[in-house]
């Protein structure tokens, strides 16, 4: 066994990392998605099958691995969650999808022993029906630029030595041994890295502000409180490559002169909490964290704290309050956390994904980082692509990538509720969660970046992209987000606390058919007031989904209000079930099914529904064998 020090300092051993890339490996995705679909059973089955097949299997990576050995390992999220469990065989370049433990013997015999491909387990592109052998042919992967995610899906998150063999902690070493804090801040500023958590504040400037503070004690916090419903990239990085987060934290701490760091992880992510804790323990054992970091005499501590389920804690000052053991309520800025944060000391808070980019910037230089993306928003961004789209999962693309590329090419197109491709089904994409807005067909060619999205009335947010098809009611979506922010408002600002409640009530009026022109006017007026009258990002952005849907789907709102009609049929109160007089044969099945005796009619004569009594439960429509009940 090599000590951490030799793994880090001996360049020949670092070269072993690239040799190891040639080692044959079976990598089983162990992200939350694949685990839910039985990835662990697949892993265990591989272990037993490979043991009985005469292959030389190694479970732990060693620098001196022999050529005929096959390494079996778990990895973090490989991103293609819907098709899990995923099994990759490298360097053969094969990706098997939806692998069950019954399939394992075939993979071991055909692929590992005979070098053949098990055709039935390959991914078939639903649009072209082409079978894809590996990542290069798979449009979901081939069109991405995976940097942060690549390592997530390749390294064993529970093996610090593997991370180190692939050059891990090299950037942290460089930051501690070769660079001064000023140089680190300067490099990050030159790279143009912007916070991936939502606001897009330049990371280098934040660090510089904290660095120049005169204080003996400073803190760095990693924001892993990914509360945005529909986003899960931070979870994937923490689960898949926890050491890259720790390394980023160490570099940030070195840059501002802090010796205590903290990772605040959302409590809904138990696996991420466990893996982060394990990574911290491993780093302490290897002497990377501790009293004497890289022989510089500097100390470095890292703690992992579990959140307790409050969306508002994603806001910097609320998170600090939460860490201090208080209710997570934001406070006015300034003073900014960089001046006075945790326990009144200078503190910087960076998103998980931001920190994951830091190591690469230090390793490859700011120019390489800047070389992709747009001028104002350099680098790549991870998006969680979900909703009515064929390929759901994690997508990493350069900033400036058009929406069309992500939804139609990487995502493989829009689907209907049953999951079949629906060519003309695209309606909207909700980006940025409850703080963001909608993008419509006119935005398909818009390059996704901080500025372009702001001008379209949306925001990058943490990067959740929820695709919605024509069957989705936009008023209901606005209501969904409003219900969320109303529930999550901490209650400090009156306009946020009461305003969101009233906005929700107004949206309910629209959905339930009680609205008129005044409702729409009031909705808009109140939404603007909440934006202005709230302290933190939650309240300031809470009305965004309403304003954005009203801007792009005004007609749909008006249909609800003036015609009392929902074109998608999702708003139950607006349904007008009627019996088609020409079709109805008067069999009486609907009369028996109706729980409120709302249906009357002579036998063998067309029946009628009394709208006063009808509760729109749909029982009649289900009972009718000839589909004579319409409008429900």
């Amino acid at each position: 066994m090599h000590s951490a020090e030799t793994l880090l300092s001996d360049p020949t051993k670092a070269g072993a990392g690239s040799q190891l890339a040639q080692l044959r490996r079976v990598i089983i995705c162990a992200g939350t998605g694949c685990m839910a679909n039985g990835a662990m059973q697949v892993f265990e089955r591989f272990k037993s099958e490979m043991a009985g097949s005469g292959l030389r299997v190694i479970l732990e990576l060693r620098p001196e691995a022999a050529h005929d050995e096959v390494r079996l390992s778990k990895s973090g999220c490989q991103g293609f969650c819907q098709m899990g469990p995923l099994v990759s065989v490298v360097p053969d370049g094969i990706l098997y999808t939806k692998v069950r433990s019954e399939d394992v013997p075939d993979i071991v015999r055909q692929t590992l022993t005979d070098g053949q491909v098990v055709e039935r387990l390959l991914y078939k592109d639903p649009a072209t029906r082409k079978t894809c052998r590996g990542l290069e042919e798979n449009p979901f992967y081939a069109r991405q630029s995976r940097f942060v995610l690549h390592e997530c899906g390749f390294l064993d998150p529970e093996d610090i030595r593997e991370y180190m063999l692939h050059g891990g902690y090299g950037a942290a070493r460089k930051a501690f041994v070769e660079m001064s804090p000023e140089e680190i801040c300067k490099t990050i500023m030159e790279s143009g890295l912007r916070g991936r958590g939502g606001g897009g504040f330049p990371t280098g400037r934040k660090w510089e502000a904290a660095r120049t503070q005169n204080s003996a004690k400073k803190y760095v916090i990693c924001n892993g409180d990914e509360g945005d419903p529909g986003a899960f990239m931070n979870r994937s990085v923490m689960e898949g490559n926890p050491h890259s987060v720790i390394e980023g934290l160490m570099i940030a701490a070195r840059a501002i002169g802090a010796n205590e760091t903290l990772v605040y992880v959302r409590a809904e992510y138990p696996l991420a909490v466990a893996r982060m804790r394990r990574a911290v323990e491993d780093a302490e054992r290897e002497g990377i964290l501790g009293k004497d970091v890289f022989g510089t005499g500097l100390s470095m501590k890292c703690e992992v704290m579990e959140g307790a389920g409050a969306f508002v804690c994603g806001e910097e000052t609320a998170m600090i309050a939460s860490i201090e053991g208080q209710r997570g309520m934001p406070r006015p800025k300034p003073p900014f956390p960089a001046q006075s944060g945790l326990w009144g000391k200078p503190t910087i808070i960076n998103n998980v994904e931001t920190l994951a980019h830091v190591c690469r910037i230090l390793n490859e230089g700011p120019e390489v980082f800047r070389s992709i993306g747009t001028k104002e928003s350099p680098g790549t961004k991870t998006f969680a692509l979900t909703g009515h789209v064929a390929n759901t999962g994690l997508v990493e693309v350069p900033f400036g990538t058009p929406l069309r590329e992500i939804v139609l090419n990487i995502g493989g197109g829009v689907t209907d509720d049953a999951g079949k491709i629906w060519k003309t089904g695209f309606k909207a994409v909700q980006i940025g969660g409850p703080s963001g807005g909608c993008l419509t067909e006119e935005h398909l060619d818009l390059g996704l970046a901080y500025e372009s999205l702001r001008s379209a009335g949306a925001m990058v947010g943490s990067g959740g992209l929820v695709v919605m098809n024509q069957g989705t009611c936009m008023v209901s979506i606005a209501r969904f987000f409003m219900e969320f922010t109303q529930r999550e408002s901490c209650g400090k600002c009156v306009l946020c606390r009461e305003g969101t409640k009233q906005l929700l009530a107004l949206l309910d009026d629209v959905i339930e058919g009680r609205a008129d022109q005044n409702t729409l006017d009031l909705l808009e007026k109140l939404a603007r007031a909440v934006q202005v009258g709230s302290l933190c990002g939650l309240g300031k952005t809470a009305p965004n989904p309403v304003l954005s849907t009203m801007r792009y789907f005004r007609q749909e709102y008006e249909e609800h209000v003036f015609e009392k009609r929902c074109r998608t049929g999702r708003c139950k109160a607006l349904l007008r079930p009627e019996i088609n007089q020409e079709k109805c044969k008067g069999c009486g099945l609907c009369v028996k099914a109706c729980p409120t005796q709302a249906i009357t009619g002579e036998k063998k004569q067309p029946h009628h529904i009394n709208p006063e009594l009808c509760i729109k439960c749909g029982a009649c429509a289900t009972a009718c064998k000839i589909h004579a009940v319409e409008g429900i």
Partner: protein
Amino acid sequence: MASTPIAVDRAENFEKAKFEKVCSILNRHARRPSGLIPILQAIQHEYQYLPEEVLTYVATSLDVPAARVFGVATFYAHFALEPKGKHVIRICDGTACHVKQSLPVLNALREKLGTSEKNKTTPDMLFTVETVACLGACGLAPVIVVDDQVYGQITPARAVALVEEIEAQERSIETAPVIAAEQPSAEAAHA
């Protein structure tokens, strides 16, 4: 019940054990008020919920007003002030799950178990049905979590089938030999 003294004994032992555990949790966090959230998390991990008397005990031990402890306990969604059922079913109602029809799943489960928005737990304390903002498994939407096991691409029918499976298991435990269930009380009597 013939063995009333034993029952009283057990209750007392239970009370004692309860505060002993709380004390050890408090000690582990050095009784610092700043550690309030991790302390409450550890207590909830132990008891599945935060009993009122434990919260006041925590406030006294940390030397902070009870209002602050209750303030924190009621602020965060993760803290439960009422006991939960033996099996906790969490339905994800994040955006992705919502557009992929998570509500019908929720309604089917509520109908099956007779729970509602207000009464989340069944009277027999077997099931708790609750919604959660996002579990981060959006690729598998809609998702439910039953006792920490994630089930993806769920349908109302499959969700109900899962509940029926658990119910069947519970019934088989109930009809299992009664002696096994009585053993702890015998031990308690000896102690």
